[in-house]
């Protein structure tokens, strides 16, 4: 730990911790207002249908009903979207996926309103349903959004070098196809939002479980046809998001706002878990084709990648998710000849968007499986093949970016991870133990005698690793800047706020640490203000693991502006010489010559009385990046982080169960600011990544989701992962506060790939399809019920 810091890198208690352990912290559904109305959504059981008419006559006179909210009540834009406006707030023309909402009923009681839903008569014409993304671009496929003329959402090409020349120079060529599954964010708090009408001159206020208040503001303002200033978004405590409370919450907020404006009453929308899983977007399933040519020494000569992402019914964030994919598709390897195509397409499936990892866990699973397979063919160890090809300082990435100006730590994280786990020894030992992977005969379900497994052979140990590089923040996706506000009061206490929204991960604590480090005060002097779009400048969204880097940069900038003012003031006020040096530490102010000269509050009081401004806005803008869309070339991100995770597993070869014994996670987040938070990111990210690797999966039948609650959608419990060991390789980076970079997403993106390689090490059998659930491990395939009916609900 670096001794020059007083709070940075230390274990600091969360600033919202007290409220959260006592139950005082208010989440979206915990807010109530006088006269507040509730709401329920009208849906039909169709994945694709043209709506001819909706007949509300049977319920119009119901005493339970206060108002019916439809598309006709929308004064502004009826279609919204993160990147493209293709999603109807109320789908009164057409539904394109089962989660779609046709209209909304508002009234005093949710249960009363629900009893009305079945009485509404919807006349509709079912349309052909498109569920297979491989068929989306077929000429005869139905168009999900005919006005776009195609089911192609986006196509990112990348061309570097000469791919055919690369293959011709290769000693061997390997081609594989991988698939990854649809998964649900599974924030434990379902969606909740309240819109409160503020009158003609003020507009509307939104309070809710909102990931990105500024994005929500934009949606609501567009839908209500109001200027941004007339939509105030106030973020409630957010019960988890992981990228998942963005579009969904924007649309829910818009519906609530339309209802609030129409009824002139506060209107709440809160979802059950079933509705949450039904309507919210998920992680993209990918189909990934890799063709790789390599020399006998392991050097990769050429890589051709073709990836298809199922975007579901709406564009959402698909263009950006798949853009990260195209940049990182070939992994952290220097490859001379690369030819990549990443496409996202429309289907009638649940739509997909941002989720922690954001287009990286899928290609990492493919490329890291591939690297292990090449190593096996060349009789190399997994670390050797990665050393031969891994990015180093001065390497040129697939996008033609020369890696410089930051520590390219790939080999270092790999070395630390291998050293720490005794990787090579264990890997060789497990490999040597001849596995008795039972080949099952699907024609005869009865075992033959030789297939019965001896007790001692039941459990096989495996170890596997995966590495990644990840571009920090938004890169060439768009504008990348953040603002922070600090106001020092005349008693020395401090208000802090930033335009980036707390998502539960602890950014407010991180920012408090940064401000207190700069100002030389203890964190308890800082009160963090609730994010309100009416007060803080728009800082873009809390996404892309950019908060510590960008928001932290802005907080540091704001604090440094104030520090400079205070230093100047102290020098003048206390008549210190020009060559003296003023320092602020632990709520005290020192002069190098005179020693302690005052307490921080005294200085603040004096400065205030002399008319010194003690409030400041800090700003942090990312360095410029560049992207050529035609060839997929450019400096995609201004800096990168590197990670290596090692998974140690026990596999039951009779049942296909994979037990996670240990994950060692080595990451280089730059400088660790908030140590408890950083460790928490690793534990949480790895656990989510493990769930993705071994059992999480949303399956659909004609677009309808089978797993609508946590009884069937299983996420890891306290018992599913034995040990997680975080190791931080701290270093310097020219960007971010004291060189702090990104950590949230890198922790998740590697785990499934490392686990799959570990299971392969245990069984001698390679896996191509996530998740490695019971059936996949045993049969190398998924089994599905014929439909979505559940016995317990019949």
């Amino acid at each position: 730990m670096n001794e020059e810091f007083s709070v940075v890198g230390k274990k600091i208690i969360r600033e919202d911790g007290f409220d959260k352990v006592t139950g005082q912290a208010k989440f979206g559904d915990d807010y109530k207002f006088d006269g507040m109305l509730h709401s329920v959504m009208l849906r039909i059981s169709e994945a694709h249908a043209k709506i001819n008419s909706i007949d509300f006559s049977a319920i119009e006179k119901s005493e339970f009903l206060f108002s019916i909210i439809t598309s006709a009540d929308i004064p502004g834009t009826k279609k919204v979207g993160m990147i493209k406006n293709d999603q109807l707030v109320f789908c009164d023309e057409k539904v394109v996926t089962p989660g779609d909402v046709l209209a909304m009923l508002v009234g005093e009681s949710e249960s009363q309103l629900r009893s009305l839903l079945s009485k509404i008569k919807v006349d509709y014409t079912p349309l052909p349903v498109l569920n297979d993304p491989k068929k989306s671009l077929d000429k005869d496929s139905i168009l999900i959004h005919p006005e776009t003329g195609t089911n192609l959402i986006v196509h990112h090409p990348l061309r570097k070098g000469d791919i055919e020349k690369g293959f011709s120079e290769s000693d061997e060529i390997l081609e594989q196809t991988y698939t990854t599954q649809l998964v649900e964010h599974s924030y434990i708090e379902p969606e909740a939002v309240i819109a409160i009408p503020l009158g003609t001159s003020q507009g509307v206020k939104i309070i809710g479980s909102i990931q990105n208040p500024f994005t929500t503001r934009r949606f609501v303002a567009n839908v209500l046809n109001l200027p941004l200033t007339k939509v105030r978004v106030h973020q409630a405590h957010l019960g988890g998001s992981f990228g998942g409370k963005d579009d969904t919450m924007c649309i829910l907020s818009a519906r609530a706002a339309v209802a609030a404006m129409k009824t002139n009453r506060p209107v709440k929308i809160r979802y059950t878990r079933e509705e949450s899983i039904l309507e919210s977007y998920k992680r993209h399933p990918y189909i990934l084709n890799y063709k790789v040519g390599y020399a006998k020494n392991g050097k990769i000569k050429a890589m051709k990648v073709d990836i298809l992402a199922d975007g579901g019914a709406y564009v959402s964030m698909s263009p950006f998710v798949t853009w990260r994919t195209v940049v990182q598709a070939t992994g952290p390897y220097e490859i001379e000849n690369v030819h990549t195509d990443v496409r996202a397409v429309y289907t009638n499936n649940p739509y997909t968007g941002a989720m922690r990892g954001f287009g990286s866990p899928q290609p990492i699973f493919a490329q890291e499986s591939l690297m292990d397979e090449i190593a096996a063919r060349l009789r190399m160890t997994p670390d050797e093949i990665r050393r031969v090809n891994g990015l180093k300082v001065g390497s040129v990435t697939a996008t033609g970016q020369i890696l410089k100006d930051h520590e390219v730590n790939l080999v270092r994280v790999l070395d630390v991870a291998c050293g720490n786990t005794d990787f090579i020894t264990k890997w060789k030992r497990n490999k040597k133990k001849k596995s008795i992977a039972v080949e099952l005969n699907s024609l005869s379900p009865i075992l033959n005698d030789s297939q019965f497994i001896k007790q001692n052979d039941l459990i096989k140990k495996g170890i596997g690793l995966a590495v990644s590089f990840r571009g920090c923040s938004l890169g060439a996706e768009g504008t990348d800047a953040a603002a922070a506000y600090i106001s020092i009061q005349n008693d020395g206490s401090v208000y802090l706020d930033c335009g980036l929204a707390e998502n539960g991960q602890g950014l407010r604590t991180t920012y408090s640490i940064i401000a207190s480090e700069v100002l030389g005060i203890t964190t308890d002097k800082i009160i963090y203000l609730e994010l309100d779009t009416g007060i803080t400048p728009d800082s873009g969204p809390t996404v892309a693991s950019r908060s510590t880097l960008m928001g932290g940069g802005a907080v540091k900038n704001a604090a440094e502006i104030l520090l400079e003012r205070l230093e100047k003031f102290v020098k003048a006020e206390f008549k210190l010489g020009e060559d003296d040096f003023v320092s602020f530490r632990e709520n005290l102010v020192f002069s190098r010559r005179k020693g302690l000269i005052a307490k921080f509050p005294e200085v603040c009081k004096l400065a205030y009385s002399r008319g010194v401004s003690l409030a400041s806005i800090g700003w942090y803008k990312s360095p410029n990046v560049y992207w050529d869309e035609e060839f997929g070339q450019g400096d995609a991100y201004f800096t990168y982080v590197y990670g290596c995770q090692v998974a140690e597993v026990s596999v039951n070869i009779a049942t296909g169960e994979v037990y996670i014994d240990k994950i060692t996670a080595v990451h280089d987040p730059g400088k660790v600011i908030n140590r408890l938070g950083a460790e928490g990111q690793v534990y949480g990210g790895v656990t989510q990544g493990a769930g993705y690797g071994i059992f999480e999966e949303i399956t659909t039948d004609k677009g309808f989701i089978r797993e609508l609650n946590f009884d069937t959608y299983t996420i890891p419990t306290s018992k599913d992962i034995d040990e997680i060991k975080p190791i931080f390789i701290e270093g310097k980076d020219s960007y971010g506060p004291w060189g702090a970079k990104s950590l949230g997403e890198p922790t998740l993106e590697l785990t499934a790939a490392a686990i799959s390689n570990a299971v392969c090490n245990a069984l001698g059998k390679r896996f191509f399809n996530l998740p490695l659930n019971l059936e996949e491990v045993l049969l190398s395939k998924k089994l599905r019920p014929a439909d979505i009916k559940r016995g317990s609900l019949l």
Partner: protein
Amino acid sequence: MMPPLGILFPKDLNEALNALALNQENVHIIAGGTDVIPGLNQESNRFKNTRLLIDINKMPEVKGINVGTEKISIGAAETFSDILQNEVVQKKLPLLWKSAGTIGSVQIRNRATLAGNFVNNAPCADSVPVLLVYNATVEIESLSSKREIFLNDFLSAPYKTKLNKDEIVTRINIPIPSKKFTGDFYKLGRRRAVAISRITLAMLISLNDNMIDEIRIASGAVTPIGTRFFDLEKFAKGKKIEDQFLKELSKMLGEQIIQVTGLRWSSEYKLPVVQQMFYQLLKGIERGSL
């Protein structure tokens, strides 16, 4: 959303049976309610017509775990946590104790009852195979009659039993197996805790000089309801527990399951696994099982 309905808390069995006699059509008995309450809240068709709940928790007749010399009698309102905290159950009915610990979470076990588990009769009810191999009987009362039948006869089809509309299950009686029995319970889920079972197996066996004196075998989740395999048991009686025979028996279990269940979407996975894990259970006898 919970539908509007009434709830009664009869102070004794008689009061409950009288209430039941009056309201048979739309009534549901609850103790823990861990199945009925979420079912109502989710508007499950199974509870669509329920208008009245009768909570049996205040009735002395359905309380207590009574230990006799030959049987243990468990009241219908006793929860899985009650069972787990009972040392006699742990010692005398180790399979029941083990299966109780695999049910849901602590919160579920604190409310859910053993009786509720089998009255509900879900295919995946964890305790059912265990109760079947223990030859458990169910005590049932109505205003006009009192009967006690084997659980195996009580269970009829998924989510259906032979309980008449005017009857209440009051107790479950489990004969204490003689000391010569050993056995085990096995559960497979998709994760290590709070999992719906994919496969459950229960087996009790008594040996006489390496010969099977008696064996009782039951499964859950691989058959439409928890099922005893009497034919298999008969066949195994008197056989030596040699490795080859244990394999044979395991394969026969697989065949029997096909007969009972037919081939389903999950059979390709479940059938080989159930044979493997039954074989592992049998091999466990050599190590002493529970």
